């Protein structure tokens, strides 16, 4: 069609010595296009297949344990390689509690930081402070874990836990302080440090994205800056913040290294936040060596499968929220 006309026009404009040469050029051109298409398509396909392969492999290797314990594994409280009894509940508990506490502390902190960076900070500081907050996310988790073991842990053990216990000990959350500071509470603090920069950075972008005319419209009515934030900016960015929090949560759920360094290890389920415990991810990290092939490894992989499913759900949920429920688009408000 038009393409052919242009092509033949180009070919005839260029001095060709023979029609055969022209055909070869056309063929190599088409071959080139096809090759590019195939190669890039294969790469994209490979990426998709990779995710599928990961899910499949993890599930397949957990099959033995699944056959042995079924879904009861999820409520099993014991993890005993000697007795060949394995259950995931202590680790689900550890994951849930550490992530939840981290989220509770991180949410107001991160949103406040996002507001500071978008509304409050003077021009010059905006970039610097924003970069500093983002750098917090770049710290390798093993370094944060090292700091957690040798600096944060002792600090929490000697100052924070005793104070919390004496001031709020009537709440079962704050039981007897631990010697080393290794436990759910310290792990939750480390996770908070990891969640905050992610949520703060996304929040900042969301707040900056609220159209200026909406802000001006609110201020022109004679409201204070905070009232404008609460009445216009926060409602308009609701869904984005929810997605950001879920993304942050996903990060916390999957963190293995820093958590395993500070959480102490154990299968205890109880009210207090202070004693050692394990999460799904940290149990995997700490048990990699010396695990007996067979049922124990299969059970570890069962844990991995549970972690994978939780992580996938969180990730997909965040993506759905972002694509569906944006009040600024004039859709569902």
């Amino acid at each position: 069609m038009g393409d052919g006309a242009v092509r033949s026009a180009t070919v005839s404009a260029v001095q060709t010595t023979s029609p055969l040469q022209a055909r070869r050029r056309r063929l190599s051109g088409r071959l080139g296009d096809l090759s590019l298409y195939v190669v890039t398509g294969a790469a994209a396909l490979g990426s998709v297949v990779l995710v599928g392969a990961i899910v499949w492999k993890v599930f397949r290797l957990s099959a033995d344990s699944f056959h042995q314990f079924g879904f009861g594994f999820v409520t099993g409280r014991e993890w005993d390689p000697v007795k060949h009894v394995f259950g995931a509940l202590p680790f689900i508990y550890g994951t849930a509690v550490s992530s939840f506490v981290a989220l509770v502390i991180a949410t107001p902190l991160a949103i406040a930081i996002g507001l500071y960076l978008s509304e409050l900070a003077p021009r010059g500081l905006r970039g610097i402070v924003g970069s500093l907050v983002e750098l917090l996310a770049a710290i390798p988790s093993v370094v944060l874990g090292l700091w957690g073991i040798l600096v944060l842990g002792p600090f929490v053990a000697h100052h924070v836990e005793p104070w919390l216990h004496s001031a709020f000990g009537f709440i079962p959350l704050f039981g007897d302080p631990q010697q080393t500071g290794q436990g759910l509470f310290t792990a939750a603090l480390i996770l908070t440090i990891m969640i905050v920069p992610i949520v703060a950075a996304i929040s900042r972008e969301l707040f900056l994205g609220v159209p200026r005319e909406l802000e001006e419209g609110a201020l022109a009515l004679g409201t204070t800056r905070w009232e404008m934030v609460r009445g216009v900016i926060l409602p308009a960015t609701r869904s984005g913040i929810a997605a950001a929090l879920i993304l942050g949560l996903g990060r916390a759920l999957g963190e293995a290294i820093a958590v395993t360094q500070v959480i102490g290890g154990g299968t205890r389920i109880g009210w207090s936040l202070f004693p050692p415990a394990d999460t799904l991810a940290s149990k995997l990290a700490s048990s990699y060596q010396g695990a007996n092939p067979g049922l124990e490894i299969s059970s570890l992989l069962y844990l991995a499968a549970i972690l994978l499913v939780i992580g996938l759900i969180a990730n997909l949920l965040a993506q759905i929220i972002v694509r569906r429920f944006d009040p600024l688009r004039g859709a569902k408000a």
Partner: protein
Amino acid sequence: MTFTMAPVIDVAQARREAGPVQREVVFDIQDLAVNYGRATTAISGVDLDIYRNLITAVIGPSGCGKSTFIRCLNRMNDLVPGAKIDGKILYLGEDLYGQGVDPVEVRRRIGMVFQKANPFPKSIYDNVAWGPRVLGMKQDLDERVEKALTGAALWGEVKDRLKKNALSLSGGQQQRLCIARAIAVEPDVLLLDEPASALDPIATSAIEELMHELKRDYTLVIVTHNMQQAARVADLTAFFSLEVDETRRSGVLVEYDATDKIFTNPSDQRTEDYVTGRFG
């Protein structure tokens, strides 16, 4: 060219003597200048008075500082980083930029409607009710909303769907919603920055009619690039233009007078050039 006429005011004469038909001066603007740093002067040497319950139009070619001028009247220029305001604006005798004057209070009394309708992504009811709620005017909120929507000539069209999203309204309706939102907090003055420039002719004339009604209760200052609109709507018209000399360019007030005088017998040649379409 037809236009409504308020009682004829000879501005120059009013300044010279206190006549029987003396309107209250709402804004007394003295030698106002605004620049945004870097030697960019937006306006300079602006001197005029705004009178109560009249519609004052601000016209002029684009870039001559009309919006900058009107945004000084409710301290919206405070929100622009680097904006410096010189001169004096007295609102009912008080210095608007004086020590200890809170812009938040200023903006409650001096409302603004923007060029592009900017309703909040909330319901129609909440758009109008939000301001009063936050400001503490919580009694009889329903009546207040109805009164504001009626005042904006929108009540009839939306009274059955108050809970619907405001973004589902047409452009003209959204702009009237913004007017309702502004009058719901009971301001003294309404500033309108090219309120109909983004609207079709039918919606525009609805807004213009509305302004005649609003004039009864509020003092209106409207910026418009549409001369015919100024002629149709305004009692007094201020013509701004750009003054360029070697050092800088800035917007200046060229002429300020009763509307029919500006359009039929302007005193300044620049005014005449503009209104007869010779430039701008």
